[in-house]
């Protein structure tokens, strides 16, 4: 019982991660939540809700980073400063991905009046719910089949988290690719890219490595600039083409 008592040390989260089993269970649970949100994004119709779910996914990722960072400090794999760096980077990432990028997209939605008449617009992803679940399931399975055998050579410290969850992050990247390939709307490609970027951040978190802050922020800035420019082009496409469907972008066919 003495383990549940030290509330002064830092609340419920610490109590959870003090139990190694519970901590890893929590990590697995959060990862499953992340994958489920990806599927929800596929079957969703409107960009507005997709971005909402994307924000949720990002926040869950941040939570996961917090849990892993704390666990690693307590387990002694991270020094205090390393762990703090890890968590700081997580907070900055969430700020950019969860706030700045959605803000840019919402601004664009307002500008081009995207969701004005949802009934007339075709779905961004023409995937039914069962099919989305089946395909995502297959992709997750594939990711585990491909990546997990590769991870057996890792030192035992990494076996708990990394070997279990790194394939999941690869699965998210694969699902993002699948989305990019099947979407019928231009903004669907944007969402797919965002999901893939989240998959990448997921991978950084679960591989428990400390990437130097400068590099991380550089990568983040690059991604943000890319998304900002894509949003700009999205507005331009809407203005010039009067449509945002991929199959109507056919000025450049052979």
């Amino acid at each position, binding site marked *: 019982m003495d383990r549940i008592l030290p509330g002064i040390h830092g609340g419920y989260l610490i109590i959870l991660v003090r139990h190694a089993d519970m901590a890893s269970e929590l990590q697995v649970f959060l990862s499953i939540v992340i994958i489920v949100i990806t599927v929800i994004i596929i079957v969703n119709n409107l960009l507005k809700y997709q971005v909402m779910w994307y924000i949720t996914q990002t926040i869950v990722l941040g939570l996961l980073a917090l849990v892993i960072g704390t666990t690693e400090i307590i387990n002694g794999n991270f020094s205090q400063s390393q762990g703090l760096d890890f968590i700081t980077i997580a907070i900055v990432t969430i700020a950019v991905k969860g706030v700045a990028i959605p803000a840019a997209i919402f601004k664009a939605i307002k500008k081009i009046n995207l969701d004005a008449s949802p009934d007339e617009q075709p779905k961004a992803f023409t995937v039914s719910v069962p099919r989305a679940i089946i395909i995502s399931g297959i992709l997750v399975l594939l990711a585990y089949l491909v990546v997990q055998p590769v991870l057996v050579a890792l030192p035992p410290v990494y076996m708990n988290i990394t070997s279990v969850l790194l394939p999941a992050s690869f699965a998210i990247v694969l699902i993002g690719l699948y989305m990019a390939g099947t979407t019928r709307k231009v903004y669907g490609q944007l969402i797919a890219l965002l999901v893939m970027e989240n998959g990448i951040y997921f991978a950084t978190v679960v*591989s428990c490595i*400390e990437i130097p802050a400068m590099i991380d922020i550089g990568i983040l800035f690059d991604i943000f600039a890319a998304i900002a420019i894509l949003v700009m082009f999205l507005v331009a496409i809407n203005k010039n083409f009067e449509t945002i469907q991929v199959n109507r972008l056919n000025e450049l066919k052979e």
Partner: protein
Amino acid sequence: MLIPPVLTGIACYFMKSKKRVELVNALGACVEFAVVLIFTLPALFESGYEFTDGIWYLDALSAYFIILISIIGSLACFYSINYMSYELIEKEIDIPRLRNYYLLVHEFIATMIFVCITQNLAVMWIAIESTTIVSALLVGFYNTKKASIEASWKYMIICSTGITIALFGIIIMNLNSTTHLSLADPFSALNWTTLHDQASLLDPALLKLTFILVFVGYATKMGLVPMHTWLPDAHSQAPTPVSAMLSGVLLNCAIYGILRYHEIVIAAGIKIGGLGFSNLVMLLFGILSLIVATPFIIIAKDYKRLLAYHSIEHMGIIMVGFGVGAAFGALFHILNHSLTKPLLFFGAGNVQHKYKTRVMEQVRSMGRIMPLTSIVFLLGMLALVGTPPFSIFMSEVLILNTMIVQSNFIIASLFFGSLVLIFAGFTTHAGPMIFGSYSPEPMVTIEATTTGMTMEQSVTHEKSLEIKNVSKGEVSYANLFIMSILLVLIFVIGLTLPDFLMSIIKQMSVPFSL
């Protein structure tokens, strides 16, 4: 090296009049070139020269790529002066957009140099992504045209997606090095020199996964089949000087990225069936690109798209070269392609301004209308499809030679067959463009085809030229001068490969040779 282009770009942005912008642009281009030469020449000529600093890095290979970027970048800046003034006269753009253009062009050069002077693989990723960002803005420069917006969207989304996959590879590489190597600090976990030195300690399975992911990512940027779909669109829609840079040197940046990983994989000694793992991947994608690009070259209708498909073909050739271990030929081919392709794009820019179309069928009798441009253009085309004595022929033969020495006959025949077909494609395209006449509306009689052009026909021909509003005369002699510099370079290199160049390339090719 990064400072001059960045500053020039900013200075161009703040200049008021057109004259001043152009002056700053020209001066900046000269300074950029000079600074690059000062820093890189020691790296090229002193064997074993290495400058390392944790983040910055310079050796012969990076110097080679940087000099190419700087040559083509500066020439494109000079070419832009005439090209953009013409666009200004045609009211395609206005002065603020002209300033934007020069700002972006110089930043583009800076980001490309940035790719080649970094030691850290993640920083290299950042640099490659930033080239995409800046050049996407340049591709979508005419942002009121549908096609141009579509091209830049496609470019941006495909390249960002591809390069995201490469980032996943880099994370796995980081995991690999932190768990298997003894590192001084976390920053060196992605220093490729460290990785290269301790490559044998890396876990081979993870390294293989990394290479595949990074290769797919950077090959997207390079335009290898099947991730090539953005390339013809972006190259045909961008302003011509930008197309020249995209094709001539931006693709090289992606090659440079792949080569650094290639070195690590070679040092780790991962082999499959006697052939290096990375070699095999490169060979596969290279030959696929070469084969797929061929029919597109033959059926192309738009001459800028034709040149873009040629880029895919040449990237394929370079990858095949590295794949079979003909590193000397491949590195030499990089140089030749980088010099030849901008020459043709510059020529294409002149043609576009004269005929105001990019459709090849509407471009006829160039030989009569602008004789000098068409001579340079024709020679450039001949060089591009691999006609002796131009330098591309030399490097192609070197690569083919290696294959035959290894008795790799299947690959050799595929390679050679594609090149022959591409040559045939060239004759059907360039011939009519330069020597052909507009076919008059009534079908050409059999008599006319056998006896050459009849009186009646040539009259209709002159008329159709008048209708098309194409006047005789060259577009610009300054641009012709820029083109002839490149032409002379490829001609001289093709005839007599200078000794110093030979020793430089030989020295660079050592780590990649089988």
